[in-house]
C-alpha cells in the first residue's frame, strides 16, 4: 500500500514534473520550428521557378504556405498551453475547470506516450463546465504520473484511455489501459507518489490498477463561493456541475 511521502519529496516531484513538461515541450516546439525552417528553405528553392511561371512550382508555393501555417499553429498551441500550465502553479484552488486540467495534462503526456510507442485516447465529453476545488498543478502532475504508471505495466494493445465523468459531488478522472495491468518493480513507488499527489491536490485516489480497473481520481466540485479575484481570472459564474457559485 502507498506509504506516506514527505512534503519535501512532493516538492521535488513538482519541480521534476515542471522540468519534464518544459523539456518535452521545448523539443516539440523545436521540432515544429525545424520543419518551418526547412519549409522556408524549400520555399527559397522553389521560388525562382515559380517566378518564371512554372505551374508546378506556383502550385507548390501555395501548399507550402499551408504547411508553414500548420507548424506555426502547432507552436502557438504549445505556447498557449504552456502559459496556462505556468499559471496553474499560481495556487488558485477554487473554480478550476477540471476538463481544461485533464486536457492540458494529456497534451503534455502525449509526447511521452508517443516515444513509448503507445496511444493515448481521451474520452472527455464536451458539456457544462465542471468547476472543481483542487490544486490544478498537482492534479496535472497526478494524471501524468498515472500515465507513467500505466505505461510501465502496459500490455500488447499499448493503449491508454483517459476519461472524465461527472458525479453528484465531484468529477472522476479515470486512467486505464486496454490490457490487464502488469505490476512491476516501479509500480509501488509510483503508486505511493500518485496517492500523495492526488491528496495534496485536494482529491482522492479511489481505485488503483492493482484492483484491475485502472486509476480513478475523485475531485470534489467547488462548493464555496468564488472571490472577485477568481472572477477576474475569467472563471465563469453560474456554471459548473454541482458547483455552488455565488
Amino acid at each position, binding site marked *: 500500500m502507498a506509504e506516506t511521502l514527505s512534503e519535501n519529496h512532493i516538492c521535488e516531484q513538482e519541480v521534476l514534473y515542471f522540468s519534464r513538461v518544459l523539456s518535452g515541450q521545448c523539443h516539440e516546439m523545436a*521540432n515544429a*520550428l*525545424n*520543419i518551418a*525552417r526547412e519549409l522556408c*528553405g524549400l520555399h527559397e528553392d522553389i521560388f525562382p521557378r515559380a517566378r518564371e511561371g512554372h505551374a508546378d512550382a506556383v502550385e507548390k508555393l501555395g501548399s507550402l504556405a499551408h*504547411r508553414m501555417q500548420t507548424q506555426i499553429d502547432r507552436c502557438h498551441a504549445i505556447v498557449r498551453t504552456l502559459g496556462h500550465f505556468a499559471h496553474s502553479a499560481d495556487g488558485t484552488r477554487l473554480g478550476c475547470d477540471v476538463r481544461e486540467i485533464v486536457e492540458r495534462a494529456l497534451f503534455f503526456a502525449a509526447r511521452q506516450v508517443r516515444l*513509448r510507442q503507445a496511444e493515448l485516447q481521451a474520452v472527455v465529453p464536451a458539456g457544462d463546465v465542471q468547476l472543481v476545488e483542487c490544486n490544478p498543478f498537482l492534479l496535472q502532475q497526478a494524471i501524468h504520473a498515472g500515465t507513467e504508471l500505466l505505461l510501465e505495466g502496459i500490455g500488447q494493445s499499448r493503449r491508454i484511455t483517459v476519461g472524465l465523468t461527472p458525479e453528484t459531488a465531484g468529477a472522476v478522472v479515470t486512467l486505464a489501459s486496454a490490457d490487464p495491468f502488469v505490476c512491476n518493480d516501479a509500480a509501488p513507488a509510483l503508486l505511493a507518489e500518485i496517492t500523495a499527489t492526488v491528496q495534496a491536490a485536494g482529491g482522492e485516489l479511489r481505485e488503483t490498477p492493482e484492483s484491475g480497473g485502472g486509476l480513478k481520481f475523485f475531485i470534489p466540485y467547488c462548493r464555496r463561493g468564488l472571490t472577485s479575484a477568481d472572477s477576474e481570472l475569467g472563471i465563469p459564474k453560474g456554471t459548473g456541475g454541482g458547483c455552488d457559485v455565488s
Partner: protein
Amino acid sequence: MSADRVLLIDDEMEFVEVLAERLRARGLEVEVAFSGMDGVKKSQATKFDAVVLDFAMPGMDGIHALKALLAGTPELPVILLTGQATIKTAMDATRLGAVEILEKPTDITTLMEKIREARTRHGVRAAERVRRQMQETR
C-alpha cells in the same frame, strides 16, 4: 558517377519529407524511414552512401539504431542530426562510429558537404577493407 544515395531516418515525417525533397533537388537519391527499426531494415535491403539519423525516436532510438546500422555495415557513414546534442550524446555516438554529429537546425549546404565528405570517407574505408582482405588472402 552515380548520385549519392542517402537514407534519412527521423520520426518527424514532415521534417524528413521536406529535407528529402531539398536534398533530391540538389542531386541526391534519397530514401526516408520514420523509425529506427524501419531505417535499419532499409539499410539492410539497399546500399547507401550515407545515413542521416535522428536521435530521439519512439522505439529504437538513434543510439540503438546507430549500433544496428553499423553492425551490418561497419563502414557505413552515419551522420547524427539531432535537436538534443549534448557532450554525452556526441561522445556516445562518436565512440559507436558516427562520422559526424550535427545539431538541428543545420544549413542545407553544411549537410550536403557532410554527406559528400561521408561518401568520400566511405570510399576510403571500403578501399582499406578490400586492401586488408587481399593482404590476408595472400
